[in-house]
């Protein structure tokens, strides 16, 4: 992938150019690139969400404080349906890059033959992790060389083996992730919820209180996300994240969507039941309007 940065020079212009610092989400160290112009292009970087800052350099160690940036790595995938020589439907899923996780794809298409159209459905076709081109026979019988049209993806979801819908394949500092979207030429419009950003990760859960039987009864959940663009006229610049467990106990914190760049936070939460149980995290505007809701499990180091 290629990361392109562009900016407008300040007045007065820096005497020693600019320093662009960038890192993939989850990494601790920045990579620094120096440039004299007002652009920087970082090529051949792995697919991931990136954040960093650009500093004006006035020589002798004198730099501006820096302006942050963040970019979430959405990428499209494409679905095509054809009929093979055995009159079976074949689905082909392609993307420019492989996804770190398997992707389940569901949808429908219309087959028209002999002036008759029928709608057919495919459910939970697995686009394997790392694939950029995958085909699978859907089966069925489609005689008469039908014309395929109206191919529609109705749902897709990554398979995370740690905790359902949130990114947490790795227990701590999940390094890279990019969210697929389909049949689009630009990322879907962000709805203001950090949960809907592909960079939203649950980075670490630390037990802070353990009962006499050794059960964790409270802990601190660290999370992070990258804001690549500011939400258009949000109802508020704060979003409340609320965790709900099976016993309807809740823990929450407020996060900002007011600035681009990396945001980190902690939710101090009570733990009832087991730490492994599935929980739900919800994002609300301050007027209590629900923005987004996902299931997850705590990122436990086993």
């Amino acid at each position, binding site marked *: *992938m*290629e*990361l*392109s*940065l*562009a*900016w*407008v*020079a*300040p*007045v*007065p212009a*820096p005497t020693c150019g*600019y320093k662009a610092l960038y890192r993939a989400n989850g990494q601790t160290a920045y990579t620094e690139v120096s440039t004299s112009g*007002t652009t920087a292009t970082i090529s051949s970087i792995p697919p991931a969400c*990136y954040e960093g800052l*650009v*500093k*004006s350099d*006035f020589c002798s160690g*004198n*730099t*501006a*404080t*820096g*302006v942050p*940036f*963040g*970019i*979430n*790595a959405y990428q499209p995938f494409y679905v095509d349906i054809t009929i093979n020589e055995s009159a079976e439907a074949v689905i082909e899923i392609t993307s420019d890059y492989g996804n770190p996780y398997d992707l389940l794809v569901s949808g429908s298409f219309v087959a028209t033959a002999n002036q008759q159209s029928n709608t057919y459905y495919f459910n939970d076709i697995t686009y394997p992790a790392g694939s950029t081109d995958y085909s699978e026979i859907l089966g069925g019988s489609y005689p008469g060389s039908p014309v395929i049209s109206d191919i529609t993806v109705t749902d897709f979801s990554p398979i995370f083996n740690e905790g359902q819908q949130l990114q947490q394949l790795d227990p701590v500092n999940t390094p890279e992730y990019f969210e697929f979207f389909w049949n689009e030429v630009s990322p879907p419009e962000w709805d203001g919820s950090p949960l809907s950003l592909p960079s939203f990760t649950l980075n670490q859960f630390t037990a802070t209180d353990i009962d006499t039987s050794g059960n964790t009864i409270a802990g601190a959940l660290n999370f992070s996300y990258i804001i*690549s663009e500011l939400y258009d006229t949000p109802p508020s610049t*704060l979003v*409340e994240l*609320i965790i709900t467990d099976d016993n309807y106990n*809740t*823990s*929450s*914190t*407020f996060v*900002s969507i*007011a*600035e681009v760049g990396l945001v980190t936070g*902690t939710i*101090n939460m009570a733990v009832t039941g087991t730490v492994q149980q599935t929980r739900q995290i919800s994002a609300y505007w*301050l007027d209590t309007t629900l923005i987004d809701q996902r299931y997850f499990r705590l990122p436990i180091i086993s």
Partner: protein
Amino acid sequence: MATFHIPVTCENIISPASTNFRIRYRLMGDVAWTSFLVAPTSATTITIPQDSPTTVLDDNRIYDFQVQNINGADNPLSLISQSIGFTAPEVTFSPTDTTVGVSFPNLSVDIDSYTLQVTTAIDPGTIIFTTPLPTGNVYPQTMTTLIEFLDPASTYRVILNPVANQFTAQFVYAVTTLVDNPYPNVTSLTATLS
């Protein structure tokens, strides 16, 4: 230690003379009361007994109070009065030349929200920034917000109002932004990934 100011009206206070007042209290929402007797007094302040840790009232919690006049018989209890003793949160300010980051701990599960207002030090009557910070009645948690578009090297008054039911208080802090960075930042930074 919280101090509560509670107006109460006792029954049958004139005659016969009171022999005792029974004062009872509980955390709002609790069922059980804790009570104790005090002798009639002209004093306007009564200290809740503190002979054990369980009788120490917590700061920033809402309590129910009732007073009963005893003058040969137990008169009816006064209506329940509620009160809360607010304390000032310990606020951490992170100023730059044009912004101030604010964080402080939510002090109690009874506090519904905080309202943060900002004025300049030289014009304390004009509010230039205000924001509600709902707590969701979650405790403990850290409240954060960012005050933007401030002038460099300027002193501001930050007014924090905790709100718990019908109660509120006001705590005022001062913060000064940093001097303007002589090394200006770039503007209109965009990032794309392809």
